[in-house]
């Protein structure tokens, strides 16, 4: 706006000086007229100074207009870029959300199981309590213990629902200090039943004194979930070998912490490794090829990276995240 008014003022100044426009000479003519300058007499110097004033004004005006144009163009461009970035970010978030939904969908049977277990325990406990109250004499102490366990089982069921809801919901990104072990344990809770049903041993090896990371809990859970689901799919075809996925947290070099997911599947062939994290790259007939690309974009959004290696004994995915300095803003969220 400030620029617009300056330009308007300059334009106004130009229009209110009609005498300048009475001289139809182009700036080139100045040089052409120069030899006759000396013989022109005192009257000429007035014309000359008017001309110089006009030249100055035109030059200033041109600069002004050019600058204004440039600045406006830059502003428009940056705004457009920012809008495009926001749009890309929004699309990434949508995609990540859709992929979380599909992951949770895959786990639905085992999630139902995880909720059913405490519900079953609550039911049997309540029935036992009823019988103990009807007994003669009523066994109140045992009923008291049962009631405490019912509360515990209830919290267990609602924890499962809370985990699922946080993955399914569309919470805005919230970067905060997190213990990677807690993130891992919540995901393991969620997929544990599914792994068991598929006959896969899910082995956590969590480093006891890991430095916290700064990150979005849901996104990091999603990254780990995708890596584990990927491992379970790799093991689906492996009937004749040990079926195991190790989820390991450990301090990496310098200021890094690592989350490692290693399976005992058939591994990844060398020609597939470079494209593994590309979007829409998949080797599965019904895969979308999004899982690992989402892991990579989550890693990058956290200032980290993810890499894969493969040997005859399976595939290893390593997610590296920058550690927070010790004694930083760390706070257990649970």
């Amino acid at each position, binding site marked *: 706006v400030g620029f617009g008014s300056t330009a308007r003022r300059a334009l106004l100044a130009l229009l209110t000086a009609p005498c300048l426009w009475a001289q139809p000479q182009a700036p080139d003519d100045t040089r052409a007229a120069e030899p006759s300058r000396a013989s022109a007499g005192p009257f000429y110097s007035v014309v000359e100074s008017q001309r110089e004033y006009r030249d100055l004004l035109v030059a200033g005006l041109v600069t002004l207009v050019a600058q204004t144009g440039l600045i406006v163009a830059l502003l428009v461009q940056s705004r457009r870029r920012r809008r495009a970035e926001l749009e890309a970010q929004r699309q990434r978030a949508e995609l990540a959300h859709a992929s979380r939904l599909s992951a949770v969908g895959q786990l639905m*049977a085992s999630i139902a199981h995880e909720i059913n277990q405490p519900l079953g325990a609550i039911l*049997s406990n309540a029935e036992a309590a009823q019988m103990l109250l009807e*007994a003669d004499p009523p066994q109140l102490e045992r009923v008291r213990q*049962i009631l405490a366990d019912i509360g515990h089982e209830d919290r267990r069921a609602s924890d499962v629902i809370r985990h699922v809801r946080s993955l399914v919901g569309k919470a805005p990104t919230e970067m905060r200090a997190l213990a990677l072990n807690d993130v891992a344990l919540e995901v393991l809770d969620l997929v544990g039943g599914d792994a068991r049903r598929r006959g896969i041993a899910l082995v956590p090896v969590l480093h006891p004194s890991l430095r916290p990371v700064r990150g979005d809990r849901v996104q990091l859970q999603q990254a780990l979930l995708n890596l584990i689901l990927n491992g379970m799919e790799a093991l689906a075809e492996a009937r004749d070998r040990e079926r195991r996925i190790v989820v390991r947290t450990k301090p990496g070099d310098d200021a890094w912490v690592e989350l490692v997911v290693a399976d005992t599947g058939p591994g990844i062939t060398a020609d597939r490794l470079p494209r593994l994290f590309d979007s829409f790259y998949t080797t599965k007939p019904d895969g979308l090829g999004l899982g690992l690309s989402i892991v990579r974009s989550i890693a990058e959004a956290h200032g980290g990276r993810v890499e894969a290696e493969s040997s005859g004994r399976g595939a290893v995915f390593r997610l590296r995240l920058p550690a927070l300095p010790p004694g930083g803003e760390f706070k257990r969220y649970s």
Partner: protein
Amino acid sequence: MDARGGPYATVHVVDDDDGVRKALGRMLDAAGYRVRGYASAGEFLMAEKADEPACLVLDVRMPGPSGLDLQSALARQEDPLPVVFLTGHGDIPMTVRALKAGAVDFLTKPVDKRTLLAAVDGALAQAASRRAERDVLADLQARYAALSPREREVFAQVVTGKLNKQIAGDIGAAERTVKAHRAKVMEKMQAGSVADLVRMAERLGPTSSPRERAPHD
């Protein structure tokens, strides 16, 4: 003693979920059964088990060997315990497999008291009748073991429907001697008639008769 085998009936509960196992155990205990809990199929197989009427309440899905694995391991034993399966989500193939392998029932969690107790009673009734059968057989075997070699020979011939005269010819003895052996066999086996003796021979299997025992798997 009531239908469920009375106060001596034991229910073995195998479930890896501590909370579920504890709650099921409490409920069955309050209902008057003796309950023993195990966290895995392996723990159950390793445990010392008394010789008593019992049944198994088994979670299908467990880490390590599954409930179905345990069922087939038990089926190879001489005297398998009747099994009631519990599952979080029973798919049809799993249910079919379990029932074909002789499961008494296949219940979906959460299971209510009435359903579970009915299934457990059914399983214990089966255990009781198997035990009764086993006891009868053991008794018969003991009686058969008390027969002399000559008496066993006569026993084998009698149950094929031969007359004393024919038997005498076959084993090369006097008809009177055969008659005496036959009376001794009837007495020792506590059989009231030849028909009784034939039924006993069927139960005892090929040891007592020339006929092959039918394969029963």
